[in-house]
C-alpha cells in the first residue's frame, strides 16, 4: 500500500508554518490523520490515482517557500489589454510590492487576521487534501469586499509556482463579500520551473445577502504539475455565484468545487472546459448543495480529449428536503479525439424534495460527421472544419466569461490549442 506515511509528511510541513491559527491547524491535522491519503478504494478518488502519482513524482515533501518574483515576470503574465487589478503571489505568499492596491477592497495577510474562520466553509473533514492544506498552508491571503461595493474591474490573483527547496505549495485564500457587493476574481497560475511540484490550493468564499461573485480559473501549469484545487462557497439569500474553470494542461489536476446554497432566491452556476492532450489527467468534482427552497443551479462541463489524456467528471447535485421549488440542471459533454483517450463521468443527482425540477444529461461521442461534411462541401479543409466545430463546442463555456480581456485571452489559448495539437 501507500508508502506515504501521513505523519512523516506532516512533520516536515508543520515544522515550517508560522504562528497563529494553532487551533485551525490542529483541526486540519487531525482531520487529515483521520482520512489519510486516498487509496484506489476511495470512491471520490476512484479514477484519479493521486497518491500513487505523488509517490512517484514528489521526493521532497517540504514547503516550497516564498521566492523573488520580478516585475517583468508579472508584466509578461498579465493578459494583453487587461485593465483590472493584480495581486501577485509566489508559492502562495503575497507580494505586496508587485500588487496593485484596490480601491474599496481590503487585502491583508491571513496572519494579520487571526480571527478569520478558516475551514468554516471548506470543511477539513470532507476531503483529505483540504485538511492537509488547513494543517499546513503557507502564507495565505484575506480579501474583504465591503457592503454595497461594486467592484467594476476584475481582480487577478496571479500565482507563480516554483519548486524551491521543497515541492509542496499550499496557498490559502479567504474571500468575503458584504451584502449587495459585486466582484469578479480571476485565478491564474504560472509555473516557473520544470521541477515537479504539488500545489494544494484552497479558496473559501463567503457571500452575503444579494452578493454577486464571479470566479474564473485558468489552469495551464505545465506538464509536471500535480494540483488539487479546492474552491468552496456559501451563497446567502438573493446571492449569485458563477464559476468558470478552464483546464488546459497539468500532469494531474483535481478540482473540487462546491457551492452551498443557504438562502432562497439564489443562483449557483458552474461552467467548465477541459481541453487535454498528451498524458494530462484532469478530474473535476463538483458539488451543488441546495439546502433551502427557491433556488436555481446550472452546470455545464465540456471536455475535448486527445492523445492519451483522461478526463474525469463527477457532478453531484443535492436537493435537501427543505429545498422545494429547486431548479437544478447539469450537463456534461465529451468529445474523444483519439483511441487512447479515456473519459470517466458520473453525473449524480440526490434528491430528497419532491417539488423540484432536476435534470442531467451526459454525452460522449465524436464530431458530427454531417456537420463536418457540410463544411467540407463548402470548401473548408477538413482540419480547419474540425477546429471550427471543436471551437464552437468549447465556445459555449467560454461565453460565460464576462470580462472581455480575459475571455479573449482564453479564446486565444483555446484556439491555439485547437489549431496545433488536435
Amino acid at each position, binding site marked *: 500500500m501507500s508508502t506515504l506515511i501521513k505523519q512523516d509528511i506532516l512533520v516536515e510541513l508543520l515544522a515550517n508554518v508560522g504562528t497563529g491559527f494553532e487551533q485551525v491547524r490542529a483541526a486540519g491535522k487531525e482531520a487529515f490523520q483521520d482520512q489519510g491519503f486516498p487509496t484506489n478504494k476511495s*470512491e471520490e478518488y476512484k*479514477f484519479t490515482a493521486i497518491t500513487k502519482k505523488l509517490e512517484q513524482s514528489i521526493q521532497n515533501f517540504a514547503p516550497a517557500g516564498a521566492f523573488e518574483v520580478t516585475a517583468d515576470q508579472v508584466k509578461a503574465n498579465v493578459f494583453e489589454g487587461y485593465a483590472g487589478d493584480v495581486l501577485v503571489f509566489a508559492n502562495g505568499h503575497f507580494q505586496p510590492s508587485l500588487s496593485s492596491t484596490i480601491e474599496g477592497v481590503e487585502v491583508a495577510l491571513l496572519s494579520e487576521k487571526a480571527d478569520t474562520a478558516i475551514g468554516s466553509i471548506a470543511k477539513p473533514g470532507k476531503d483529505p487534501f483540504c485538511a492537509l492544506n488547513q494543517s499546513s498552508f503557507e502564507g495565505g491571503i484575506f480579501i474583504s469586499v465591503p457592503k454595497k461595493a461594486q467592484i467594476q474591474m476584475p481582480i487577478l490573483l496571479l500565482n507563480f509556482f516554483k519548486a524551491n527547496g521543497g515541492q509542496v505549495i499550499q496557498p490559502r485564500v479567504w474571500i468575503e463579500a458584504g451584502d449587495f457587493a459585486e466582484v469578479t476574481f480571476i485565478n491564474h497560475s504560472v509555473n516557473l520551473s520544470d521541477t515537479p511540484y504539488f500545489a494544494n490550493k484552497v479558496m473559501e468564499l463567503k457571500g452575503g445577502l444579494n452578493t454577486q461573485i464571479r470566479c474564473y480559473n485558468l489552469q495551464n501549469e505545465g506538464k509536471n504539475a500535480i494540483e488539487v484545487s479546492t474552491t468552496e462557497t456559501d451563497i446567502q439569500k438573493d446571492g449569485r455565484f458563477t464559476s468558470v474553470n478552464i483546464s488546459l494542461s497539468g500532469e494531474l489536476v483535481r478540482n473540487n468545487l462546491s457551492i452551498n446554497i443557504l438562502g432562497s432566491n439564489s443562483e449557483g452556476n458552474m461552467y467548465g472546459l477541459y481541453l487535454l492532450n498528451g498524458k494530462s489527467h484532469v478530474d473535476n468534482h463538483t458539488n451543488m448543495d441546495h439546502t433551502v427552497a427557491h433556488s436555481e443551479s446550472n452546470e455545464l462541463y465540456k471536455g475535448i480529449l486527445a492523445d492519451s489524456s483522461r478526463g474525469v467528471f463527477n457532478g453531484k447535485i443535492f436537493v435537501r*428536503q427543505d429545498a*422545494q421549488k429547486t431548479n437544478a440542471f447539469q450537463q456534461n459533454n*465529451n468529445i*474523444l*479525439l*483519439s*483511441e487512447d*483517450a*479515456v*473519459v*470517466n*463521468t*458520473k*453525473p*449524480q*443527482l*440526490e*434528491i*430528497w*424534495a*419532491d*417539488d*423540484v*425540477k*432536476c*435534470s*442531467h*444529461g*451526459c*454525452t*460522449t*461521442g*465524436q464530431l458530427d460527421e454531417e456537420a463536418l461534411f457540410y463544411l467540407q462541401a463548402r470548401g473548408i479543409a477538413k482540419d480547419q472544419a474540425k477546429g471550427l466545430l471543436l471551437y464552437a463546442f468549447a465556445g459555449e463555456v467560454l461565453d460565460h466569461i464576462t470580462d472581455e480581456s480575459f475571455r479573449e485571452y482564453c479564446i486565444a489559448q483555446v484556439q491555439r490549442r485547437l489549431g496545433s495539437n488536435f
Partner: protein
Amino acid sequence: MSKDNQILEELTSKEYEHGWSVNYEADEAPVGLTEETIRWISAKKEEPQWLLDWRLKAFKSWQAMSEPKWANVHYPKIDLQSLKYYSAPKLASKPKNLDEVDPELLDIYKRLGINLNEQKRLQGIAVDAVLDSVSVATTFKGTLSKLGIVFCSFSEAVKEHPELVKKYLGSVVPMTDNYYAALNSAVFSDGSFCYIPKGVRCPMELSTYFRINAANTGQFERTLIIAEDESYVSYLEGCTAPQRDENQLHAAVVEIYAGAHAEVKYSTVQNWFPGSKEGVGGIYNFVTKRGICAGDFSKISWTQVETGSAVTWKYPSCILKGDNSIGEFYSVAVTNHYQQADTGTKMIHIGKNTKSRIVSKGISAGKSQNSYRGQVQVMKRATNARNFSQCDSLLMGDRCGAHTFPYIDISNSTAKVEHEATTSKIGEDQLFYCNQRGIATEDAVALIVNGYAKEVLNQLPMEFAVEAQKLLALTLEGSVG
C-alpha cells in the same frame, strides 16, 4: 395540500396483499452457517462430489470477504449465523406431475394468483415454482423436452445434465464475484435451470415463481439459463413472501449465457414483502444477475418491475462480448413507506458494434429512498459501441428521496454514449389539464403514472404486464386513485 396529505395517508395505509403464510411441515437445515451446513445441504440434495467441492471453495472465499458498504441503503447488520439455510416442504416422495403435488402447496400458488393448472391450460406457460428453497412443481416439461429444451429445477439438472451445469455454473457470475454471490454459491439450495438447444425457438414463456414461506430462512436460489446459438427464450420470474416482523434474506444468483444470434428475454416482477408501513420486517433482496452475450449478434434483455422488498440491491448486467451484440435493461422500481432500493445495471461493451439501452423509471413515495446506480463501460476494442440511458424519477411526497449514480467510463473514441435523467413530481399543469377535461385528480394521477412507466411495462410479456400494472396500482393506491 390537504388533498396531498389525504393521498399520502391512503398510500401509506396500503397493506401487503401476499402477507399470509401456510403452515406445512418443513425439512430444515440447522440454524447457522458452517462448513457442516454446506455438507448437510449437499448431502440432503444428494449432490455429486464436484459440486460439494465447488460449494466449499465458494464458502472459503466468502469467509475472506466482507459485506459491501457502497450501496445507498441502510439496514441493521444481518446475522447470517441466525438463519436457516435450507427449508424444504416435506414430501413423501418426489412428485411426477402436478396431481401428486401436495394440494396445500398448490393452494399457496392459487392464492398468489398463479394457479399452475390454470396457467398451464390457459396461457401455455411453463412454470417452475420454488417454495422457500425447493422447486415444487414444473409444468409442461414433456412438451418442452420434445424440442430438446430442458426446463427443470436446478437440483434435477445437477442429476440429469451434470455436464451442462458443470460447464456453465459460475461462468458468468464467478463464485468470488461479490459477497452475496459467494454466499449463494456456497449455500444455494435450488432454483431453475433452462437449456435451449441450438436453433430452437422456445414456443412458450418459461416462468418461475419464488416464495419464501418459513420464518428465519434465507432463500438462495440459483438460476442458470443457457441459450445456444440461434435460439430464443423468454423467461419470467415472480416473487412473493409472507408478512413477518423480522427481516428475511434473499440472495439469488441468475446467470444467462447467450450464444451467437441467440436472444434471451428475462422479465421479473418482484413483490417480496416490503415490510410494514412502519418499516418493520420485509425482505432483504440482494441479488446478482448477469448475462453474457458470448456470441456475435446475440441479445439479452432484462425487464424488471420492482415493487417489493425492504431493501433491494440488484444490478442485472450484460457483458456484451460478441460483436454486434445487444444488451437492454428496462426497469420500474417503486418504493413506498420505508423501502430502500438501490438498483440499476451494468453494460460492459467489449465486442465491436455493441449496443445497449437503459430505461429506468423510479417512483418513490412515503419515506422511501430509491437509487439508480448504473455503469456503462466501453472497453478499448469496442469500436462503434452505442449506448443510450435514460433514468427518470418521480417523487410523491416530501419525505422520500431519489438518487442517481450513473458511471460512464469510455475508453474508445468511436463510442457514442448518451445519458439523461430527470427528477420531478407530477406537474400541477398536467393535473389541471386533465381536470379541465373532466378527469378526476386521482384518475389523472393514475393516468400519468401509467404513462410514465409505459415504456418499461410494454416490454413485459402480456400476462406479466397485466400483473405488473395491477401491482403498480396497488403499491401506489391512494396516490394514484
